[in-house]
């Protein structure tokens, strides 16, 4: 089995396992896929300044950034997207892009740039979780990074002032939340009855917005009106992060299935080549025609290799 995995992330508050969006995404995915990950919060350590959060340590390797960490977990056979079709995998990529483009700037603004929220909630929280003298540096640094990111992405020359951009990013974010709400509908999760990586991303983005005690946030009031999104966050928290209930088992994947899938991949890679050779071989009667191995029964589809399905369908 995989070596012990340790995740460095920001600590939790407001009923959430972590207040940091990226850390929350990774934590949620780890729970959904059944990966056993030791959580080591970087609160009150010097790592608040030096570490890139979240970071997954496994043996000798260190992986950063949620997308890379999720890929790493999938390679270790912790795959919450096991049952998705290729099309659903494509939809996952599209919705994650939507979250990054439309929702992230507004979240950064709400937590780090909006003066009232920053002074009353974000800065005290992060300052209280950093050792002296980092409590002066860490929140400032995050706030500056957030502001420059928003301006670089959304600030249109010559309007390089944040006030011009605010209206646009909030209306984009509200539209994004509405679109997520339409997509979720009345279901528990975005794809069927089990949560997937898209659910992890949406949870990571939306949960801090729902749960934080923000003094002033029109975006928070907007998301609280979207009942299915708040219900979604509460469901994930109750089912996967509540200390009372044990976590439900992840989608069943055993060694045999993984090997079978690898075999299918290999076979299908070769079958293209073989079909091309087939024509040549048919024309020479002394060679027996080469047949590809009989395809095994279809394993659950994996969105990481959609081209299999274009061959199998």
């Amino acid at each position, binding site marked *: 089995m995989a070596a012990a995995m340790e995740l460095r992330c920001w600590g939790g508050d407001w009923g959430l396992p972590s207040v940091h969006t990226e850390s929350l995404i990774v934590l949620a995915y780890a729970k959904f896929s059944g990966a056993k990950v030791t959580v080591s919060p970087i609160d009150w350590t010097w790592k608040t300044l030096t570490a890139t959060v979240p970071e997954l340590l496994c043996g000798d390797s260190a992986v950063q*950034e949620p997308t890379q960490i999720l890929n790493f977990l999938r390679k270790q056979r912790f795959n919450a997207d096991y049952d998705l079709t*290729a099309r659903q*995998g494509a939809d996952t990529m*599209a919705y994650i*892009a939507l979250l990054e483009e439309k929702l992230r700037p507004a979240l950064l603004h709400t937590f780090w740039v909006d003066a009232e929220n920053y002074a009353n909630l974000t800065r005290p929280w992060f300052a209280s979780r950093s050792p002296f003298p980092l409590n002066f540096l860490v929140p400032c640094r995050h706030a500056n990074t957030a502001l420059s990111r928003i301006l670089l*992405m959304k600030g249109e*020359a*010559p309007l390089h002032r944040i006030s011009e951009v605010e209206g646009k990013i909030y209306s984009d974010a509200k539209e994004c939340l509405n*679109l997520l709400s339409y997509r979720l*509908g009345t279901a528990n999760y975005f794809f069927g009855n089990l949560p997937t990586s898209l659910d992890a991303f949406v949870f990571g983005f939306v949960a801090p917005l729902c749960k934080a005690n923000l003094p002033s946030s029109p975006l928070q009031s907007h998301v609280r009106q979207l009942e299915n999104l708040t219900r979604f966050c509460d469901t994930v928290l109750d089912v996967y992060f509540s200390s009372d209930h044990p976590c439900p088992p992840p989608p069943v994947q055993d060694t045999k299935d993984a090997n079978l899938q690898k075999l299918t991949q290999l076979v299908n890679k070769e079958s293209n080549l073989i079909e091309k050779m087939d024509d040549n071989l048919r024309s020479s009667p002394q060679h027996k025609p080469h047949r590809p191995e009989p395809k095994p029964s279809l394993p659950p589809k994996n969105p990481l290799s959609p081209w299999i399905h274009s061959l199998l369908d």
Partner: protein
Amino acid sequence: MSLAAEAFVSQMAAAEPWPENATLYQPLREDQILLSDCASSLAVQAYLRMCGLPVQVVCRANAEYMSPSGKIPFIHVGNQVVSELGPIVQFTKAKGHSLSDGLDDVQRAEMKAYMELVNNMLLTAELFIQWCDDATANEISRPRYSSPYSWPLNTILAYQKQLEVRRKMNAIGWGKKTLEQVYEDVSQCCQALSQRLGTQPYFFNKQPTELDALVFGHLFTILTTRLTSTELAERIKSNSNLLSFCRRIEQSYFEGKSS
């Protein structure tokens, strides 16, 4: 634009029908325009043709500076100037022309999500390859971008633009990526688009939408532009349904267009 200004523009837009002399401005086609701008411009042209709205394409060396948001392309309709595909779609909708009216809420959510995927992955990859890859930047992007200007302005402007794009790449986390990783991202994006398209003629079955225009703009431009390496075009060509999609749109909407 602030929200109030946008609402005002929409109201004014709704008042008049689409005029005959609408113009679309872009940089000079032969010498100056770069891959990403050409893709965005082609997307807007495709969209307007799909709506059946006539527009003249005019090439100007200072198109980027004329644009209200600094981005290419922009259209000049009546006495209003609108840039970028998103606002242009809203503008034409205010005038009563829309391609996505027939979609329900979930489909519209999907369409917007896929449009963001194209912007997030394909457009960013185009910008990265143009400005952050030294070979392409030195041989193609900087000379082309600064071709209308004389020394020393051409050097200053080219480096300024390169610095600006590199800062943006760093801000969104693409600064540390290698070219190979970017090609891989493009492949994944194309596979996702290919999966979504499947065997249908357009992304939302029978009728084209702004998503089709956007995807066509980017893919067609990448396939027909000569860069330092053909890797990007090869990655797209591996999805045959995307190739036939581009050909279909080119034949349906651009036949008889003077190149």
